[in-house]
Each structure stands twice: as C-alpha cells, then as structure tokens.
C-alpha cells in the first residue's frame, strides 16, 4: 500500500539543504560541527520515523515534479530503500562524530568544504536509496559522484588529483552507461517505477534487447560496486581522509553501487526475466572471481587502507553475487551483508583512522604492539575482523549463512566454495594485523612515548560500530529491523524460486 | 591632399560643371523615382559620389566645411529617423508598421497641392529618408577610408 507523504523528500532534502548552512558557517567551527551533528540526527530521525510504516507494508511516497514528460522525480520508502537509507543515515551520525575528532586531530584544511560535501553526499545517497524510479535513481547516482569528488581530492596533492580524475572517469562512465539504458527504456515507453517483479516483462523473448540493456544498466551500477575489472578507482581513492574512506566504502558510494545492482537486477529486470535469459550467470561469475582475486590482492598490500580497500572490493562482490543468484535466500543474505559489511568495514576504517591520527602510521608492518597502546581501538578492530571472517555469532556470519544457503538453493555449489574461500582469505589478511597488534613487539623499534587512545570522539563511534557487528549478528532486528526488511524484500521479489 | 596644385581647368570643370550636374542628377533621380528608374539608394549614392568627387579632386573645398563629419552623421541619422519614424507614425495612427495608408498626410497635400495620394506621400518621405541616410553614411565611410594615416598616431 502506497501512501503519499512528504517524509521521503524531507529525508533527502534535509542534508542537501543543510549542506549550504554548514558551508556558510565556515568561520565558526564549533557551530558548524554542532549543525552537522544536528543534521545527521534530524535525518536519522526522519528516516527512522518511516520505518514502522514500511515494515507494516505502508510505503510512504513523495512525488515532487516531472523530470521528463511522464517521468516524475519520486521518492519512495520501500523495504529495500529503507534498509539502505537507515544504514546510511545511522552511520552518518557516527561518522560525523568521528570526523570531528579526526579532522581536528590532524588539523586538516578546508573543513567546511569537507562537512558540506559530506552532507551533500549523504543526501545523494539517501536519494539513491529512496528513488522510486530509474530516472530519479540516475539523478541521485550522478549527484553522488559529483558530491563525493571534493572529498576524494580533499588532500589536493598530485596523487589526490590523479585519484580524483580516475574516480570521475570510472564513475561518470558508469553513470553514463546507466543513463544510456534509462534513455532507452524511456524511449520504449516503459514505466521504470521500481516494482518487485521487475518492469521489463514486456521484453520477454527479446533476448538481444535484454542483453544490451543488461550490459548498460548492470554495467553502469557495478562500476560503483567495484566489480573487477572496474574496481581500480577504489584503491586509488584511498588518498582521501579516513572518514571519507569510511563513508565511501561503508556507506555512500560503493553501497549505492551495490544497492543499484539490487534495484536494477531485481526491481527493473525482475527475477524471471534474468533467469530466462541467463544474463545473471555472467555477473555471478564476474563477482565470484572478484571475491577471490581481490582477497588475494588484499593479502599482498602492506598499506592498511589499501588492504581494507581490496577487502571492500571483495566483500562488495559477495553482495553482487548474492543478488545475481536471484533466490530469496541469497537476496536476504545479500541485503544482510550490505548492512553487516557496512557496519563492520566502517569499524575497520575508523580504527585505521584512529591509528593514523595518533601515530601517523599507515602500514601494517609498522603496527607491531599497537594493541597495548590502543587497546579499545584494536579491540574493536579485532571484533570487526572476526565479523569479516564470518565467525559466528557476528553479523557477517549470519549473512554468509544465507548467501551460502542461497548458492545451494540455486544449485550452484561452486559459489558456496567461493564464499567459504572468501571468508578464509578475509581471516588471512585481517587476523595477522590483530596478532601483530597484540602479541608482537618489534625488537628493532620501540614506541617513543605513550600514544594512548585517540580522542573520545573517535573511539566512541568505532566502539559502537564494533559492538554492533556483534549485536546485529545475534539480533539483527535491533533497533532498525534490518532482518525484517531484508526478508520482506526477498519474499516480495524472489518468490518464484 | 593639401599640397596638390589644382589646375584652373580642373577646378572649373569639376566645381562648375561636374559637381552641380551630379548633384542635380541625384536630385532628379530621387524626385522622379516614382515614375522612372531610380529612388533613394541611387540618389543617395549619386549625391555621395558628387561630394566625394569634389573632395578628391579639389583642395580647400567648402564641401568639407558644409558637410563636416558631425554633420554627415546628423544627416544619416535624420534620414534613418525619417524612415523608421514614418513607420512608427503609422503604428501610432493605428495601422501596422510602415502602413502609410493610415497616416493623415492630407494636411501636407493641402499646404503643397500636388495631388498625391497618401501612399505616394509616404513613399516620397521614406525615399527622402533613404537618400539622406545613404548619402550621409557613404560620404562618411569614404571620408574615413581615404583619411591618410599619421604614423605618429598609435591606435589602441
């Protein structure tokens, strides 16, 4: 049941408009940061206020204006969208608190631009989450690219500029491919309002057209989802400040890409159509290869943030693979993984940032014994590592369970082994860090002076997210009913399995 | 051009015969444009030609004083206004732009009874306007084009 409501529009508008306020308050850092937190909380409140309705099946929708004759700018709080929107707005609150500590700790330049772009990015991400049709989705998807660009190049070094160019090249190309597909659908007169069974039923039997559309649309979204070989912008973008990496990798950009895969595959093409044409297999194989290859690459990197970046590439493909399997179990797993990976990976990045602020170290090999210096931070890191490896009862165990079950369900046992291999490799590239931190002290190197924990503003968020990785593993419905939402989406769409 | 010695014959021929003849011809072309070939453009061009001829061939010509540059600008502007203004007058009189039929030209005919219709008077007025505009503009243009260049003066 769809009911008209201004809430979805407000949820997107508050951060977008608030960004101007943040930028205007540049001369008063304290007020600016209070406003940032207030914005984040207000947005979270708006999103959460729509949750009960969505779980009850009363979907709020806001139609704003016509973008093109017959196609509206419309926002809708359906289950899948709410899942992503809640995650994004919730993590935004934590990231904002963390950013304040981080940016002040490092005395970074141009902080107003940073907070403003941050707010804009979250607004665009919420737009992506709540978009009710493909054109609205494309609009926010492109805006997300644009708004995150200043964050990627925040350092303004040559390396950052090069990374920014690469980032723009990849994501704009993806956006354009998506636009190409959208235009085509609009020209054929197909209403692209997302619907649970897909909207391309009329194309059944026209395999060539479906394949071409699949290449354009899925190709467009998997760029942001960093499926190999379209992933290389993501490690490059690691030059950005750590809160940005946290946002990019856990919340906004890559999740928008993955979420786009859900939207395109399930809500545009529809399960039945993809199964008929077999287009899902290509994507599934590509994603499976990415899971393994990216994990192997992560093993080789000494730079902590790069290692995490490749880990992200790998885990995003878990989700893409889960969606591509087209079954309700796999889809539930994919959506849970989207949430679980968000909260887990953001913990890891928060930790990396905290370490950087306190010690200015970025390489894994330099972290011997740091666990004694920063026990809380490294404790959270350990929790998140356990979650990444899929150890029960952490959240990513639950999602992998469903993903694996989905693979079995789709009679594609090979992919089950991919998931298992991915888990083992995750353990392989994360556990050594934990081990170094706690059980090893470097003989050739002594810590000069007591570093201690980072400021409370940084430690509190990472502790919260680290613990959430555990809590959501046990009770995924607390407090945002993620599990209900995921199953609601899966049951609504994959029912034909 | 100031140091040129005018021959008496040239002086006489140009000033007493050619220039008046050309100017007269120009006026004839203008006035008889309704019945014979010619009209404003030709008349303006011929008049300008006469002026230019006298300027090119004679030094210290009074034509230069009579038709100084500001005056030529004035003449051109006056001609343009005569034409465009007739159109506006038609608009004010309630017709379409340049619709002479609606302007009450009868009063002109009463002062100067030559038995012309409204449209004929309108045509004549705009032909005069064209003549003035073309004459002023062309004379001015040629005047500027033939102006010798002082090397000391630098252009910005």
């Amino acid at each position, binding site marked *: 049941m769809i009911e008209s409501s201004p809430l979805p529009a407000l949820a997107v508008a508050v951060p977008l408009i608030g960004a101007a306020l943040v930028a205007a308050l540049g001369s008063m850092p304290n007020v600016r940061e209070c406003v940032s937190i207030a914005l984040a909380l207000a947005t979270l409140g708006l999103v959460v206020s729509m949750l009960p309705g969505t779980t009850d099946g009363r979907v709020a929708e806001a139609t704003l204006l016509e973008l093109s004759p017959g196609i509206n700018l419309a926002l809708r709080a359906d289950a899948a969208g709410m899942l992503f929107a809640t995650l994004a707005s919730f993590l935004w609150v934590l990231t904002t608190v963390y950013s304040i500590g981080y940016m002040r700790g490092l005395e970074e330049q141009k902080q107003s631009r940073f907070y403003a772009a941050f707010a804009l990015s979250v607004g665009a991400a919420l737009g992506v989450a709540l978009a009710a049709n493909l054109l609205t989705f494309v609009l926010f998807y492109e805006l997300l690219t644009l708004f995150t660009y200043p964050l990627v190049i925040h350092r303004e070094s040559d390396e950052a500029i090069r990374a920014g160019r690469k980032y723009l090249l990849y994501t704009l190309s993806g956006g354009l491919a998506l636009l190409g597909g959208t235009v085509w659908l609009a020209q054929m007169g197909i209403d692209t309002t997302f619907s649970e069974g897909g909207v391309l039923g009329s194309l059944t039997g026209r395999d060539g057209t479906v394949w071409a559309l699949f290449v354009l649309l899925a190709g467009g979204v998997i760029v942001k989802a960093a499926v190999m070989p379209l992933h290389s912008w993501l490690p490059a973008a690691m030059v950005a400040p750590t809160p940005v990496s946290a946002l990019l990798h856990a919340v906004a950009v890559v999740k928008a890409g993955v979420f786009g895969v859900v939207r395109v595959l399930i809500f545009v093409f529809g399960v039945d159509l993809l199964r008929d044409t077999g287009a899902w297999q290509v994507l599934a194989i590509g994603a499976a290869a990415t899971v393994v290859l990216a994990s192997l690459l992560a093993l080789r990197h000494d730079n902590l943030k790069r290692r995490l970046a490749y880990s992200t590439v790998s885990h995003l493909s878990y989700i893409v693979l889960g969606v591509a399997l087209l079954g309700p179990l796999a889809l539930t797993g994919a959506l849970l993984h989207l949430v679980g990976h968000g909260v887990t990976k953001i913990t890891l990045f928060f930790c990396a940032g905290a370490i950087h602020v306190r010690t200015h170290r970025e390489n894994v090999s330099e972290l011997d014994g740091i666990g004694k210096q920063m026990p809380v931070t490294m404790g959270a890191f350990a929790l998140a590592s356990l979650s990444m490896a899929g150890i029960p009862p952490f959240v990513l165990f639950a999602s992998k369970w469903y993903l694996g079950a989905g693979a079995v369900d789709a009679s594609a046992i090979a992919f089950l082994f991919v998931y298992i291999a991915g888990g083992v490799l995750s353990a392989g590239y994360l556990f050594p860090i934990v081990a170094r931190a706690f059980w090893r002290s470097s003989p050739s190197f002594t810590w000069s002076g007591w570093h201690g924990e980072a400021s409370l503003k940084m430690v509190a968020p990472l502790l919260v997210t680290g613990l959430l990785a555990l809590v959501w593993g046990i009770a995924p419905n607390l407090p945002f009913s993620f599990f209900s939402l995921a199953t609601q989406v899966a049951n609504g769409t994959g029912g034909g399995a | 051009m100031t140091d040129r010695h005018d021959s008496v014959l040239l002086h006489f021929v140009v000033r007493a015969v050619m220039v008046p003849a050309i100017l007269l011809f120009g006026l004839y072309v203008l006035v008889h444009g309704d019945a014979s*070939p010619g*009209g404003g*453009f*030709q008349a303006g*061009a011929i008049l*300008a*030609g006469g002026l230019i001829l006298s300027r090119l061939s004679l030094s210290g010509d009074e034509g230069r004083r009579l038709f100084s540059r500001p005056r030529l600008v004035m003449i051109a502007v006056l001609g343009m206004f005569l034409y465009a203004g007739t159109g506006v007058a038609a608009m004010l009189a309630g017709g379409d732009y340049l619709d002479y039929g609606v302007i009450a030209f009868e009063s002109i005919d009463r002062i100067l009874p030559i038995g012309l219709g409204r449209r004929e008077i309108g045509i004549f007025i705009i032909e005069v306007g064209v003549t003035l505009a073309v004459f002023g503009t062309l004379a001015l243009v*040629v005047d500027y*084009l033939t102006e010798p260049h002082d090397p000391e003066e630098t252009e910005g």
Partner: protein
Amino acid sequence: MVWELELALYGLLVLTSVIALWVRDLLAAVASLTVYSFIAGTLMALMGAVDVALTEIALGAGVTGVMLIGGISLMRRRSSD
C-alpha cells in the same frame, strides 16, 4: 535581345572577374572589378532591370570602386597573389 551579344558580355564578365583576381597590381584589379560591375549593370539593363542596373552602376561600380581605391591608396600597390 540578341543572345550573341549577351554571350559576349558574359564572356567579358568572366574575363574581367578573372583579371581582377589574377593581376598583382591592386589598382588594376580594382579597375577590372569596376569594369566587371559596369558590364554586369549593362546586362541587367538589357534584361529589363533598369533600376537594378542604375543601382549596380552607381553603387556597385561607383561607390565600391571609389571605396576600394580609397582603401588601397593607403596600401602597397602590389599584391602577393
């Protein structure tokens, strides 16, 4: 109208136009262009367009010629091509 005469005039037109573009002496070129315009005016008069002929001769040959001569009188007379 005698078409042979017309043909001859057209021939002269082509000739003068080519000369105007060919000769390196700019004054000669301008003179040739003036002749060209004059012949064109004559042709127009032959075809019954006396108004146009008068204009072409007054403006096209006369004024243009005077302006061109005025303009090039300030320049080097020889053209490079």
